C-alpha cells in the first residue's frame, strides 16, 4: 500500500489541516508517513505545496519523485495545475473550483481543464459552496479530503477517526461538522 499526494493551495488556505488529518489516520493505522510542507512566507498569499506520502513500507524521500504522485489534491484551481509533472500516468486530480484571485494575470482555466480531462481523471468540486450548505464554510478542506478519499488507500472510517483526533479539542460539534463535510465530498466524487 502506498499513496503519494501533492497537496496544493495558496498560503493561508489551510491545506495543512488536510495533511494533519491524513497524518493522524496514517499513524492510527501504523503506516509510515512523510509530509514535506512549505513554511516561511506562506501567510502572504503565495503558492504553497505539501508532499504527503503514506506507505506500509519505510519511506525514504520527503519529496515525491516526478511522475509518481497518485493524487493532486488542490484547494484552488490554478494551483492544481502547477504540479502536473508530479502526477503519475493513471493518477487523479481533485480540485476545488473556487478561484483565489490575488494576482492581476489570473488565467482563464475552463479550456485548460477540458484539454487535460482527456489525459487523466479530474474531479472539480465547489467545496466552498458545499461547506456553506452544511453550515460551516471553514470545513471546505474536509469536503476536499472527502472528494479525494476514493483515491486514497486508507479506509474511510480510519480517515474519520483522523478527523476526530485533529478536531476533538475544538468540541464535538466541530468534529461532527467536519465529518459531515468529509461525507459530502465523498458523495460528490461517488456520483
Amino acid at each position: 500500500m502506498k499513496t503519494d499526494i501533492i497537496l496544493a493551495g495558496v498560503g493561508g488556505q489551510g491545506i495543512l489541516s488536510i495533511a494533519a488529518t491524513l497524518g493522524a489516520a496514517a499513524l492510527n493505522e501504523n503506516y509510515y508517513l512523510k509530509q514535506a510542507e512549505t513554511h516561511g512566507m506562506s501567510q502572504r498569499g503565495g503558492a504553497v505545496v505539501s508532499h504527503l506520502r503514506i506507505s506500509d513500507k519505510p519511506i525514504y524521500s520527503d519529496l515525491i519523485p516526478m511522475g509518481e504522485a497518485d493524487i493532486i489534491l488542490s484547494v484552488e484551481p490554478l494551483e492544481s495545475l502547477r504540479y502536473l509533472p508530479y502526477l503519475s500516468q493513471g493518477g487523479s486530480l481533485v480540485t476545488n473550483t473556487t478561484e483565489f484571485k490575488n494576482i492581476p494575470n489570473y488565467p482563464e482555466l475552463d479550456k485548460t481543464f477540458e484539454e487535460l480531462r482527456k489525459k487523466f481523471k479530474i474531479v472539480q468540486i465547489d467545496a466552498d459552496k458545499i461547506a456553506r450548505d452544511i453550515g460551516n464554510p471553514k470545513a471546505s478542506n474536509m469536503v476536499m479530503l472527502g472528494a479525494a478519499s476514493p483515491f486514497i488507500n486508507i479506509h474511510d472510517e480510519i480517515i474519520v477517526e483522523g478527523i476526530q483526533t485533529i478536531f476533538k479539542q475544538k468540541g464535538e460539534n466541530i468534529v461532527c461538522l467536519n465529518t459531515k463535510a468529509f461525507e459530502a465530498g465523498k458523495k460528490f466524487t461517488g456520483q
Partner: protein
Amino acid sequence: MQRNLFLGVEAIGQAAIDAGISGIYAYPGTPSTEITEYIQNNKVAVERDIHREWSANEKTALEEALGMSYAGKRSMACMKHVGLNVAADVFMNAAITGIHGGLVITVADDPSQHSSQNEQDSRFYGKFAMIPVFEPSNQQEAYDMTREAFEFSEKTKLPVMIRITTRLAHSRAGVVQKEILPENELKLPENLMQFMLLPAYGRKYYQNLLDKQGWLTELSEKSEFNTFTEGKDKGLGIVTCGIAHNYLMENYPEGKCPYPVVKISQYPVPEKWLKKLENECDELLVIEEGYPLVEELLKDYFEKGTKVCGRLSGVLPRRGELNPDHVAKALGKEKAETFKVPDNLANRPPSLCAGCGHQDTYFALNEVIEEIGDGRVFSDIGCYTLGALPPYNTINTCVDMGASITMAKGASDAGLKPVFAVIGDSTFTHSGITGLLDCVVENTNVNIIIVDNEAVAMTGGQDSSAKGKIEKICEGIGVQPEHIRLFIPLKKNHDEIVEIIKEEMEYDGVSVIIGRRECIQKIARTKKINKAKKQA
C-alpha cells in the same frame, strides 16, 4: 512503541529538552525558527523553566549559550545559515575554548533559497572551526543525533554543530522518543582560564583542538550514524551526506542499492570508510545537499586518481536543492515522460498582506522619490523587502540584516544625497543600532525610516526585542530628538507622512522616521492565542 509526528525542527526541539538542556538561545530565521517555538510551547520546558526567550541576534544568542555552558549546564543555540555569519566570531572562538556543559549549535541551511538571501553550506563553518558536525538524514535521526550531540559535546569538550536543511526542517514523520534526562548541576569549569583566549592561552588551546582531530575522525568511523553498506556492483561507489541519502534510496524501492554506499551523517568524514570505498570501486559519486564539500575533499587536484563525480563534475546540479529525480539522472536511470505544466499558468509570488502598514509607508516614500529620482533607498530583510516588487518598486538593496543603514551611510559619504534607509524594528535591534551610531558620530546626512510593526513578522510574528524602545535607543545614541519623527502608516495619513519625509530630507544630518502600526497578522495571531487560553 509510541510514534509522534514531528517536523524535523520539532524533533530537534524535543530531543534538546530530553537531553536535559537548561536553555535555548536563538534569533528567528526560517527554517530554524520552530525549534525555539516548540520549546517555548512545551509543557516540560515550561515546568523546568528552561530559558527560552528570543535573543537580539545570533551572536548574542550563541554567546549566551556559551555562558550557560561555562556554568556547567547544557544549552542549545539555533539559527538559520546566514545567522551563523553574524555569530561567526564567537563560533570560531568557542571551538578553541571548548565547552563545559554540552553545547549544541543547530544551523538550518536553505538550499534553493526558499526564503533566504543565499544558499551557503554551514558544513564549511564546521570544518573551518574543526568541530564535529552532525547531519541527520531523517526525522528520527534528527531526534537521536540531537540527543546524543550533548553527550558527545561533553565527551569531546567541543561544541557540536547540527546541520539541517529546509526539507528536513519542514517535513514531518513518525519519531520515537527516549526518556528525558535531568538537567546538569550548576558548576564552574575546572580550569577557570578555559575561556581566556589571551594569545598565551589561545595558542595552547588551539593546539589542543588540533590534537583532537585524529580522535574525532576515529569517532566518526565508529559512529552508528556513518555506515558502509556493501554492494555487488563495484563499477560505482556512492557517498551520501545527510538527507541526500534518501534521494539515493528512493531510487531503489526495496532498499537494495547494487553499489557500495558510504552514508555520512557525522563529520569529520570517516576516512577509513571512504578509503575502503575508493579501493573497491572504479568510480565515485558524491550526493550531498549544499555545496560540494565532500566531493572537493575527495577529488584529486590533478585528477590522476579515481574519478569522482557529483555537483562539481556536473552529474548533479551545482546549485539548488536536490531531489530523487536529480539522483535518478546521475545514476543513468531513464524516467518516463511526465505531464507538462500548462503554458497559461501564472506565477503567484508572495506579496504584502492586504492592509499591511508597510504599504502605506512605501506609497508615501514613492511620492518623494518621484521628485528626487530612483536608486536612493537602501533596505535589508523583513516583510518590507517585498517593497522591491511591484506595485511599490521602492527599495533598491537587500544584502544582510542591518545593511540598510550602513550602506546608506557609505553612499552618503560618497556624495549621494539625499539617501534613505528602510529597516524593520527587529532588524534595527538585531544589527541596525551600531550602524546608526556610526551615522551619529559623523552626523551623516541619512534618512532612516524604521518600519515598526512591533513584530518579527517575516518569520511568523515573534515578539520583537525593539518593542517600546526605539525612540529611547535613538535618543540615547545621540540622534537629535527633533529629528526623531513618528507617523502611523495608514492611508488616511498619506499626506502627513509625505510631509514628514520631505522635512527630514531637507535636514543635513541624521533623521530617524518611525512608522508604527502593529502587523495585522500578529494582531490576528494574538487574538487567536488569547481565545485559546480563555477556552482552556
